[in-house]
């Protein structure tokens, strides 16, 4: 396993901390001219998503985390696991509920997602930023109202609920921003 010294710290570096894989967000070198040097580091725990601050003595070493990001295509879910396939190697992987998290409600077959793997096991799944999904259920559309003012909830084919303009009908395809969970536009078939 690789180890890193504090002077190799930079944002994005993946290290092990308290047995969890983490990513360095920010690293600040603090040193009194005549005294001990420290590294003040802000770190995201890749399992929980929580951000913590940690101080190291400069020169300390930590174990690196075998964490990689890969693009994979979503195949299907059996309720317990969500299965993905690498478009290059055709290797298949199952991600559990914790790893998939909120991304689950945006996943439609063949969507190209970003999987963060730790020792080959999915840690987290990021849905594509923009997805096109069909409306499964919503109140009937109000003809003529294209202002976008007001709005109503619509349930999409994946189960996600988003706020949409009043003129949207069941069966419409919508373009959604998965980061904000907001409706962007009606998509052409």
């Amino acid at each position, binding site marked *: 396993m690789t180890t890193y010294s504090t002077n190799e710290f930079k944002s994005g570096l993946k290290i092990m901390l308290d047995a969890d894989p983490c990513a360095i967000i920010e690293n600040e070198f*603090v040193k*009194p001219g005549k005294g001990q040097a*420290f590294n003040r580091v802000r770190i995201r725990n890749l399992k929980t998503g929580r951000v913590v*601050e940690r101080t190291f003595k*400069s020169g300390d070493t930590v174990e690196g985390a075998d964490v990689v990001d890969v693009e994979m295509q979503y195949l299907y879910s059996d309720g317990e696991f969500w299965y993905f396939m690498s478009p290059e190697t055709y290797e298949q992987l199952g991600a559990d509920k914790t790893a998939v998290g909120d991304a689950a409600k945006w996943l439609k077959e063949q969507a190209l997602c970003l999987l963060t793997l730790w020792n080959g096991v999915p840690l987290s799944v990021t849905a594509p930023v923009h997805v096109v999904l069909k409306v499964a259920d919503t109140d009937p559309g109000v003809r003529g109202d294209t202002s976008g003012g007001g709005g109503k909830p619509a349930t999409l084919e994946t189960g996600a609920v988003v706020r949409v303009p009043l003129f949207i009908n069941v069966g419409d395809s919508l373009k959604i921003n998965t980061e904000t969970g907001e409706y962007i536009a009606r998509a052409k078939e």
Partner: protein
Amino acid sequence: MRRRAALLAEARAFFGERGYLEVETPVLARAGAADAQLAQFALNDPVLGTLYLQTSPEYAMKRLIMAGSGSIFQITKAFRQGEVGRFHNPEFTLVEWYGLGYDHRRLIAEACALIARLVPSLQASARIISYRDAFRDALNIDPIEDPTDRLRAVAYDCLAPARKLTLDDRDEILDLLMSHAVAPGFATKALTVVTDYPASQASLARLNAQGLADRFEIYRGSLELANGFHEASRAEEYAERFAREAAKRRERGLPSIDPDHRLLAALTQGRLPDCAGCALGFDRVLMLAMDAAHIDEVLAFPIAQA
């Protein structure tokens, strides 16, 4: 670059008005700094052997003073290994000066006047506080008298991010508290001068009647700008402080550095004349003058591009 040139000219004018002589001393020298906290670049010359890029011009300037130079200043490059960050570049510019007949009090006033001239946006009046009072105000502990166990307990207690650190060394704990809890509370629009350091952090400052070091550090917010001493003057003091740093180096498995024999030899011929000396981080002062957030902004070619 223009601003750098203007401030360099301003600093030279400041010292010129006060009768200081500008000097140059070697950046590359046979002796390295004793200080266990400084990692230095060692170079190997096939003829001369190991040479060090100087971490500060202190030893050479003291040799000049012993040779009768009078009050001197220098603006020079200094080098410290592994120091890279928002406020650190391994190669940086130091303004270092020694006032003959000065004590640290008088030097503090002069250093603050220099900084105020280079950074007019700072409030004119500096707050002078002892190391002890700075810790008392911020953490309600006594950094001089309290047992190490108590200091460690406070460090673990108030600095959650440091809880996993092994803290054996008293000065290490004090450095941690100073940089993480005490200095961050200093004023950001004015200078804070910390004085009367614990004897264990005296470096080459003389000790006063209370057993504390006549050493000072000038801060702007938590940023350290300058460090100064009422200089120790006797050969025994230097030999003892060098030996202490050498012991620390051995303890930590760091490469040993030969003490500066030429300085020690000069000191055995006679004391260092009564003087106080100060080193000012010029790049950091320039950062303040230009309101820069990163030292890279004030360097023509920071280390990543050098």
